């Protein structure tokens, strides 16, 4: 490695490159070009082909600003969280939230006034976690939900009916477990991540009560979680599949007879099995229980650090409130989501028949969304405990007791902050 002429030339070229590639963050200070100011819009990476082209098409169709779309693979939450601390973040971004701390920290812009006259047309379950103290902080784009997929033929071969209680689910999963295929897939971690609070809602409880206290300080909670441990102990659960619960691959590859997954997986499942499958809510747990399905929505939010607050708000209003044709296209043409607008959901043909219609019905009858007060710190504490209960056989009562303590402290913290 002497410094030869060639290396010198190479480093010269390199220096040239360094200076040529100036700051390029996709946004600028003032208006430029014919289309008004530059806005940068972020999406997390959707798996369905065509989605990326679609959102770029919408952005190009907007004529009051020059919107550039960024498609972000991997660790989306981490990337947006870091980017929101700086000037180089997005103006408009998709967010699985925003979180309470993002709202209280003033990182996102209040969008309440955009909802004038249309607020009632938004799915109330999806809108609730976007609302804090009566102000709305992001516009729900589409509603996603999770359901239990099962193979009709496998169940009827085993002489089983679709389970309606958690105990039946435990029995059915055990019955359907074979040598090279398992009865049920709740995710590679045994269900702690994918299910989250769902078993608690199925036991008739909540994560956080309406008045802001812990919602599962109740013996029924321990009983519901213990049933998940039974599933694991019976070896009825598929674990260690190459793809996780959000991907229907394990179900389609017949590695499992039942799988917990998102509504978005429905087209792939239908393609593989035709009519030989059905969907169910998470079954009721215990005497006071009722079926439950988790419902959530990615929302479009505006960063408080944007230099074009008005233009950014105009753009999200245009895309996610005014242009119902785009919203329809986005929800139904690529993946499989429920439009966030009730009027659109009603008119969606794809959602009115077969398993899809069942799923939509569950979402209105049994849907719950994780409350805004359920902060990431609370979620981690609960999920850790759930994992220990399922996999290590930890005592549900004592585990839950320590979760209740941690969550109470966390609720105290956020309450103190908002007052």
């Amino acid at each position: 490695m002497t410094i030869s002429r060639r290396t010198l030339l190479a480093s010269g070229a390199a220096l040239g490159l360094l200076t040529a590639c100036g700051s390029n963050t996709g946004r600028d200070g003032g208006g430029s070009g014919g289309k008004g100011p530059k806005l940068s819009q972020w999406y997390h990476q959707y798996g369905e082909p065509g989605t990326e082209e679609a959102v770029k098409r919408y952005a190009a169709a907007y004529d009051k600003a020059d919107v550039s779309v960024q498609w972000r693979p991997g660790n989306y939450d981490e990337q947006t969280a870091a980017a929101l601390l700086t000037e180089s973040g997005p103006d408009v971004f998709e967010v699985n939230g925003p979180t309470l701390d993002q709202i209280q920290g003033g990182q996102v812009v209040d969008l309440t006034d955009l909802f004038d006259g249309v607020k009632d047309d938004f799915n109330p379950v999806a809108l609730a976690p976007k609302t804090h103290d009566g102000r709305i902080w992001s516009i729900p784009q589409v509603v996603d939900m999770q359901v239990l997929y099962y193979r009709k033929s496998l169940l009827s071969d085993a002489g089983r009916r679709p389970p309606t209680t958690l105990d039946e689910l435990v029995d059915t999963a055990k019955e359907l477990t074979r040598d090279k295929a398992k009865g049920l897939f709740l995710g590679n971690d045994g269900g702690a991540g994918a299910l989250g609070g769902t078993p608690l809602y199925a036991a008739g409880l909540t994560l956080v009560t309406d008045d802001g206290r812990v919602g599962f300080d109740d013996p029924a909670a321990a009983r519901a979680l213990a049933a998940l441990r039974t599933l694991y102990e019976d070896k009825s659960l598929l674990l260690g599949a190459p793809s996780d619960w959000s991907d229907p691959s394990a179900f389609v590859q017949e590695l499992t007879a039942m799988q917990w997954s998102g509504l978005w997986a429905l087209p792939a499942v239908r393609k593989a099995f035709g009519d030989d499958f059905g969907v169910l809510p998470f079954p009721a747990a215990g005497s006071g229980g009722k079926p439950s399905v988790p419902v959530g929505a990615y929302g479009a939010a505006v960063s408080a650090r944007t230099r074009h607050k008005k233009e950014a708000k105009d753009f999200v209003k245009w895309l996610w409130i005014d242009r119902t044709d785009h919203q329809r296209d986005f929800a139904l043409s690529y993946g499989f989501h429920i439009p966030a607008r009730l009027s659109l959901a009603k008119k969606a043909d794809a959602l009115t028949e077969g398993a899809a219609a069942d799923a939509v019905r569950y979402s209105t009858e049994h849907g719950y969304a994780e409350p805004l007060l359920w902060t990431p710190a609370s979620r981690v504490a609960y999920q850790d405990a759930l994992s220990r209960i399922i996999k290590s056989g930890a005592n549900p009562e004592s585990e839950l007791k320590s979760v209740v303590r941690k969550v109470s402290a966390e609720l105290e913290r956020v309450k103190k902050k908002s007052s």
Partner: protein
Amino acid sequence: MYDAWVKVGRALRVTLLIALALLFLIPFYLLLRNGLAAEQDITAPDWTFFPSTLHWSNITELFEDSTVPMARALYNSAVIAVLTTLGTLLLASLAGYGLARIPYRHADRVFYAILATMMVPAAVTFVPSFVLVSSLGWVSTLRGLIVPTLFSAFACFVFRQYFLGFPRELEDAARVDGLGYWRTYWLVVVPNSRPAFAAVGTIVFIGAWNSFLWPLVIGQDRDAWTVQVALASFSTSQVIRLHQLFVAAAVSIVPLLVVFLFFQRWIVAGVERSGID
């Protein structure tokens, strides 16, 4: 009797080595097998040692995929890895030489201050670093991807130890010829230290090629994606296609394997004479 034992010992050793070598090759075999297979071959219930028909089209499919700019990512990674390597070698070797050879009262203190940063996990300073680089306006630029990673305490440490063991006679001869530190360094020390540069360079190159979190957060534009980021985009999409993932992984390591095989004997020679040990 004694000879017999030696023979048995050697046979055992050779067998063990071959067995271990085969074990070490298994992951490469899996990479190739899955990368060139059709999806249903990978997930089939019965194991096939190698797919009956090799799907070379997986490779072209990878480069034609419009949603992931694989060719561009390979190019970016190459540029970043080469520039990072050159920059690190220059800065760290100069610093290492200064610390080892130029008498200065506080040289040891400076050395320990540099060494101390080796103990700070990069994740500790991740968010402030990002905010800092971002406030310089370096997000999505080559500068932002390269410059903050140039100051490797490890490389500096290795060079210092290496130069401590560098034969003084050579430098003294240069001094007699009237060369100062600067020219001694470039005309005498550097040309005689190729193995050390090769060894450190390879290690830095691998690190730069394989780094993930920093390029992911700094390289926001798709045009600034590196190979590792592109690879992640295959494995974090909602629907995973295994053959695509494996062929992308295989393609991502080929350039490194080439560099590695080429520089291997340099690395051994460099380590032998450097201060790594």
